């Protein structure tokens, strides 16, 4: 495991640098991942050989560019096992995908008095859009409780999801607690009550095999930048009949069928929702990221990360003064581990770790209601990916000890 899964670490040039004179250990993968050479090369190749606007010309470059852009869509379709390419819509990010659903679909189906059910572990991007929708429609926003371990309380879910529920929106994997939610089960529950199921896949698609048809979710959202691709490209998957019923919310180039001076009609799916010049190189690079991940194998990635968690979580739990949020059992725990150290503020801890070359995140992780729920102001978060190693885990554990000592065991 010295160089990550299949020696993949060597594909990430950024990792071979010193930070504050110490070798970098990058453990902020839940915020964004690093990019392998092959993905960066796909961007350069595109701009050095094929760059042109898509869907817009009969010339050779434009054709090449359109082919590359659309075949990346085919790769995504296969990667999440979507039933057809028209169900895969390019967006900027998970956040934009979820906002598109809340605005367009929410507008279509939610009425006064309806209930929208989420959980306290949602990222702001899968929370504030529903708050806003609820406020606008005079609908009710309800939360499913968590168990003491930080898992979704399925008994409470069965109480909260009722025939009044119109939308259930739950994250597939938490960006704070390291838990994976039983989406298939929740979807069944939602559908039994005639509700639609929306799933935030930002923390799952990069780390496990996701099959949107198996999950049977109505919508699924994720971001390229958390799975080796550049920033600025994301995906919205939706069931075709729902996407067809929805109105676009941005208007302009690409998404048009015909425009008269006082009226217009829309293009077919998926382009109906892709107004303006899209992030062409981002989409192509996402395709190349998917090639890279597929080559490693999503099951292998999941197994490898499980091994890392099995190794590091018990070690962290043993450090006196460390509090771990979320399940303490490493099994089925993703590579996202949130903790606090003594009475230290997470900023102080993260600055200490940064001096040791270890990049972790400190803060509320865009999950303030979860912080309130856990009754903390903020946490430190270390998040692993397949290019991290046992040595990285050791460095983290040892540096936490160093930080602890620096701050006099938290008695600063």
């Amino acid at each position, binding site marked *: 495991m010295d160089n990550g899964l299949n020696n993949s670490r060597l594909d990430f040039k950024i990792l071979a640098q010193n930070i504050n004179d110490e070798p970098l250990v990058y453990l902020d993968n839940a915020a964004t991942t690093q990019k392998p050479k092959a993905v960066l090369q796909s961007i350069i190749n595109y701009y050095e050989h094929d760059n042109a606007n898509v869907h817009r010309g*009969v010339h*050779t470059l*434009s054709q090449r560019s359109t082919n590359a852009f659309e075949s990346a869509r085919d790769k995504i379709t296969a990667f999440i096992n979507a039933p057809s390419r028209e169900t895969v819509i390019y967006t900027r990010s998970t956040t934009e995908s979820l906002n598109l659903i809340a605005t367009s679909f929410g507008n279509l189906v939610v009425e006064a008095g309806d209930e929208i059910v989420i959980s306290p572990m949602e990222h702001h991007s899968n929370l504030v859009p529903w708050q806003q929708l609820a406020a606008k429609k005079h609908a009710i926003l309800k939360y499913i409780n968590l168990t003491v371990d930080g898992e979704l309380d399925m008994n409470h879910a069965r109480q909260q999801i009722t025939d009044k529920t119109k939308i259930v929106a739950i994250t597939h994997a938490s960006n704070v607690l390291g838990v994976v939610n039983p989406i298939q089960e929740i979807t069944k529950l939602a559908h039994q009550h005639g509700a639609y199921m929306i799933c935030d896949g930002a923390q799952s698609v990069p780390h496990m095999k996701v099959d949107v048809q198996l999950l049977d979710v109505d919508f699924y959202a994720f971001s390229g930048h958390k799975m080796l691709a550049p920033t600025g490209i994301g995906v919205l998957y939706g069931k075709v009949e729902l996407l067809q019923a929805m109105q676009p919310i941005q208007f302009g180039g690409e998404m048009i069928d015909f425009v008269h001076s006082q009226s217009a009609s829309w293009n077919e799916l998926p382009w109906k929702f892709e107004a303006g010049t899209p992030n062409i190189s981002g989409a192509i690079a996402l395709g190349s990221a998917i090639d890279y991940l597929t080559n490693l194998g999503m099951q292998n990635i999941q197994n490898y990360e499980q091994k890392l968690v099995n190794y590091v979580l018990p070690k962290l739990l043993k450090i006196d003064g460390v509090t771990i949020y979320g399940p303490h059992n490493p099994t089925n725990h993703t590579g996202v581990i949130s903790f606090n150290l003594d009475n230290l503020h997470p900023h102080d801890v993260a600055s200490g770790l940064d001096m040791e070359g270890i990049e972790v995140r400190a803060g509320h992780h865009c999950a303030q209601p979860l912080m309130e729920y856990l009754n903390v102001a903020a946490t430190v978060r270390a998040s692993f990916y397949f290019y991290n190693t046992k040595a990285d885990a050791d460095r983290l554990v040892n540096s936490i000890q160093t930080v602890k000592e620096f701050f006099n065991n938290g008695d600063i």
Partner: protein
Amino acid sequence: MGISKLNLLYKETVLDHAQHPRHHGKLSAATSHLELRNPTCGDVIDVQAQIEADTIVDLTFDGIGCTISQSSASMMTVALIGQSVTNARELITSFSKLTIGESISTQADESLGDAAILGTVAQFPARIKCATLPWHALDELLEKWETQK
């Protein structure tokens, strides 16, 4: 190579159909019609069909388009008038295959007649949509007809 490569696409038969389009215009006895646009370029094709006893008795087209789409539409009318709806839809599929360079049965090739010549469009990927637009329009028309009958 230069422009001479275009001879592969703009063959004499193709130009002939573009210059002298067969079955062009409105069809007064039409039982159904369908308009389709290429949103990229704004081209429009309007296909009108007279279907009786599961057979395309007559077929015309109308609209604005480039040499390739106009010629393709003309060839389509010639190939598909007199065909059963089922056969016509199969031939449309065959034509689509030709345009992306896939091979089709000799029988289908024969039934397509002049239209088979447009198979060379496979070497001009940017123009495939031009060639297939009228056929897509007719296919949608026939699909609707099938579900409504």
